[in-house]
């Protein structure tokens, strides 16, 4: 049995406290979500309640599609932009960085009002406008993640090698750069998905209904059911991200697997 080193003790205490701080409310909420008020015991009644609710699947699907669309929009916009900024667009980098920081300093209410007053009618009557708005909200995180990933690879050499081998810019970005920075792209994807799936304020202010607004509405009639829904949402997002991470393995693991 390994001994715990004295030097690591403060770190372990801090981690334990932090872990309890996160896990205790989650555990409590999970325990609460299984309570059945009628019989006084525990059961799946609250989960059965929202699973059988008529709009559950509908709103879950909408949220999922919007989140995936937001992630897609960001990747299509950001990967080529970040590649260009790292290869030759140094002069405009400060301006682009400023733009990507704006969603952090502009309140969501201002974004919502701006969208309502400036977007054309066809955009305001289509719920996919939310995907673009979610992409804007995720911009600061996604851009910085991609930029850091691109700085960590010999971007100029691999893009020039790809072009020399006959790949145009589109194929270079899609077939060479994106796979090379796959872990970074995935991190951006995760952040955008997580942010989009949990976004409430903007959706509510723009008068659209997604899974999060539906949960809020439902919670007003069944508090235990609402907690069960929250626990479900948390687990579902976690499983989704874990699934994507497992599906797209890092390069080194692939190589190791080949070696085996």
């Amino acid at each position, binding site marked *: 049995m390994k001994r715990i080193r004295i030097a690591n003790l403060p770190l372990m205490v801090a981690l334990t406290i932090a872990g309890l701080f996160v896990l205790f409310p989650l555990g409590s909420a999970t325990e609460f979500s299984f309570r059945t008020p009628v019989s006084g015991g525990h059961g799946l009644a609250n989960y059965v309640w929202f699973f059988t609710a008529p709009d559950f699947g509908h709103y879950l699907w909408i949220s999922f599609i919007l989140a995936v669309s937001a992630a897609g929009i960001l990747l299509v916009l950001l990967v080529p932009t970040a590649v260009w900024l790292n290869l030759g667009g140094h002069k405009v980098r400060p301006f682009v960085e400023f733009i990507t920081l704006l969603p952090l300093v502009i309140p969501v209410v201002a974004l919502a009002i701006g969208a309502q007053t400036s977007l054309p009618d066809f955009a305001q009557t289509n719920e996919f406008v939310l995907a673009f708005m979610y992409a804007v909200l995720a911009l600061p995180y996604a851009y910085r993640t991609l930029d850091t990933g691109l700085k960590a690879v010999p971007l100029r050499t691999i893009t020039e090698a790809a072009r*020399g*081998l006959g790949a*145009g810019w589109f194929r270079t970005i899609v077939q060479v750069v994106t796979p090379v920075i796959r872990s970074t792209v995935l991190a951006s994807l995760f952040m955008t998905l997580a942010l989009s799936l949990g976004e409430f304020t903007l959706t509510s202010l723009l008068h659209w209904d997604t899974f999060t607004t539906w949960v809020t509405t439902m919670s007003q009639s069944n508090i235990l059911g609402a907690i069960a829904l929250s626990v479900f949402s948390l687990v579902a997002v976690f499983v989704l991200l874990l699934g994507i991470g497992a599906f797209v393995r890092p390069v080194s693991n692939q190589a190791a697997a080949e070696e085996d």
Partner: protein
Amino acid sequence: MNSATLTLSGVTRRFKDVYALNNLDLTVGAGELVALLGPSGCGKTTALRIIAGLDRADEGQVLVRGESIDKLPAHKRNMGMVFQSYSLFPNLNAEENVAFGLRMRGASKAQRRDRAHELLNLVGLDHHAKRFTHQLSGGQQQRVALARALAFEPDLLLLDEPLSALDAKVRANLRDEIRALQIKTGTTTIFVTHDQEEAMSMSDRVAVMNGGKIAQIAEPDVLYHTPANEFVAGFVGQMNRIPAQISGSKARVLESDVDAKFDWETQPAEAVALVRPEAIEVTPAPNGNATVVARAFLGPMSKVMLQTTQGFSFDASMTSDQSASLHSGDSVNVSIKPGQYLVVPA
């Protein structure tokens, strides 16, 4: 065999007020290997990048098989390139890396696999076909990069200091392998390097560059023995600078009169003779014109450091057998072998 001629005609590239290339002219024959040799900032890499289409010339033309390729983007130029830094795609294994160029050209999966194995076999790495970048050594990565650059039968092979990042032993081996492969495939090749030994040992011709221009282009032995100017003489090989007194058409060097062979418009007040260490003859003599300062054993050859009675120092190179009888403090007579010198203004 895929041999193409290359011509650079009046190619100029400016970065603000600095000329990276200044009206550069270069012609490379089909199947020839020409090295662009020069110090940092001489424009050799810029020239290569313009040929590859990764940079543009401000003026001048690049022609392959006599046709201008200036308007062709890099991916349509059909040129294989090997970079100084390892440029393999880390998400692909060696076989997939080699097949990448063929994939871009729409070759079938079977064609790609067969050709990739053929090329990997040529560079001696067929058994590493499934390995990824991080599972290959630096030398192996550059071999794969070379196979990748040759797989789609390029018109030109462009090598941008491909051996610089490797250790000395691997570098020497790979140098020979590249040359053998180039001769075997017959691919016209431009090889950029700042290492004169690499350039001299691998190339059909060496273009010594300085200040964005070619100072001299010639076969390695011609370049070494008859440098066109002081820069080439100083850059290629070791060179002694021995003071010379000009008198008419003659120059007095090491107490002997030699033909100055100069074509200067006005006779300079002071001049120096540029002499290779191996062009200096050393003969033991009790009252000679120089003294042995030290002797350095370098295997089959030795370097003998000398000082004249006037007090200036220079080196002589000779076989270790010849130098065995020379010791520090010995008096010797030194002279220059006929014709093996260049007299220039000091």
